[in-house]
């Protein structure tokens, strides 16, 4: 069995190096993001890291006018809302992420099902640096 650690620290370290990683069960091949250390399908502890394509589809979304502090600091507000959505990745897992390339001011125009691809988002400096998942609308 692998001695690797399947932690958020590892996930974000990979992400810093532009690697978008999930975990995969070596028993039943189920792929997970968040990177699960235990397979919830077959209960195996035998997992591996696996790189994900970052390609997916929009499952649902919202356009937020009143965000958390770090999004306000990043310049979003009532007049400049941001879109966040649930994205179904090609490999199976679903994740949340900021959705880019859509018209957040006219959310009625945003279509569920549009194809998306990963764009790693960052804000702030040093210890206050935040990294999160973004997805670009694919043309």
């Amino acid at each position: 069995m692998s001695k690797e650690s399947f932690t958020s620290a590892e996930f974000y370290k990979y992400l810093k190096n532009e690697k978008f990683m999930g975990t995969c069960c070596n028993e039943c091949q189920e792929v997970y993001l968040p990177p699960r250390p235990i397979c919830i399908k077959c209960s195996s502890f035998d997992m591996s890291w696996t790189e994900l394509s970052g390609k997916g589809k929009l499952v649902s979304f919202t356009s937020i006018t009143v965000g958390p502090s770090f999004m306000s600091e990043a310049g979003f507000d009532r007049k400049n809302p941001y879109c966040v959505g649930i994205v179904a990745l090609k490999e199976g897992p679903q994740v949340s992420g900021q959705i880019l390339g859509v018209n957040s001011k006219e959310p009625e125009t945003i279509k569920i099902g549009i194809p998306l691809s990963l764009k790693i988002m960052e804000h702030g400096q040093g210890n206050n640096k935040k990294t999160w998942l973004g997805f670009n609308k694919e043309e």
Partner: protein
Amino acid sequence: MSKGKKLGREVAIVGSGMSKFGVFPEMTTRDLFVEAYKDMTHSVDKGFDPEDIEATYISNFSSDIFEGQCHTAPIMADWVGQIPKPATRIENACASGGITLRQGLIAIASGVCDVVLVGGTEKMTNLPTENVTDALAAAGDTLYEVNCGLTFPGLYATMATAHMHKYGTKPESLMRVGIKNHENGALNPKGQFNVSIAALMKSKQEKALNKGTPVPEWEDELAFMKDNAANPVIAWPLRLFDCSPVSDGAGCILLAAGEIARNFTDNPIYIIGTGQGSDHALPERKDLTSLTAVKVAAKQAYEMADVTPDEIDIAEVHDCFTIAEILAIEDLGFFPAGKGPKAIDEGLTRRDGSKPVNASGGLKSKGHPIGASGIGQVVEIWNQLRGEAGPRQVQNVRVGLTHNVGTTGGSGVVHIYERRN
């Protein structure tokens, strides 16, 4: 919990009370809880000796964050004279109240206690709004769910969008949930907002008239709800009046073993079913239009109580956002999946409808002091089943249900109650 499991002993509610819910800058969690406790003592028909209480269970979301105070349960127990008896705090985000009731119930069923005090308390309004938004986000999965900028309104908004996409649900149905709950809440003096949307519209017009500013005109309540100035978007499609408020408040319940319940009152309310479930963070769920934790909890509760959804006469459900009430009435089996909005549109969940929901005004109008919300629901069902709900009393109710949700359905807890008089 496997099918057909029963509690080791029968448990009844013999007293119930709450503080006013609202904004109380000079009150702390313990001050609010004392108010709820005192209110509860007046509700016990034959009175009780505080010495009879053997344990206290306290629901509290995060006085840690809101007040810098942990170890909440013994402090609450101390303030109402329950030292040196056991006092235990439960935290499951917004489902804390219902799950705390469940622990009190289980403590009696186990034989360890005969009489248990169950309380819930939360003091939220002293933090600035942006800090409250951050504090609430702490209930989501901060590593993988909300770190991309999803707020709680945002999370529920994605469920609303999914429901709209799958079933053709219209924002108007969400708005009608808010209109109904404010109408009910206008009859609830303990609630945060004591005003119907119609009355609110009138008062806004009068204010403008008095100030000499342009008087807003709305054709009807829906028009008001669609007005971006009166009801701005928070997280599309959810607007301000789709969201429950930030609140202070507390609730308190006295539980007794079935065999001694009539020492306290001739009209105890029996808890005949309990169920609890959990779920992954929202993004991982394959269906965003239904809460698995609630379905699991409801199944357990219905089976234990041996009643069907049709037999529920009245329910208090967790309407932290209007979409949540629609999911609730579908997940609880009151209406088929996707048919919740139609039921709302037809008024079936109004106080005079076939399935009255949130006669208290719900979290939307009564307020949502997180740790107290689930307890407040029980207080309403107690009042309704005993026929003591005053002007908002629903007629001919014998079996009631409460539905309390944590986060976006990360926790779900359902209880079923019965009047036997």
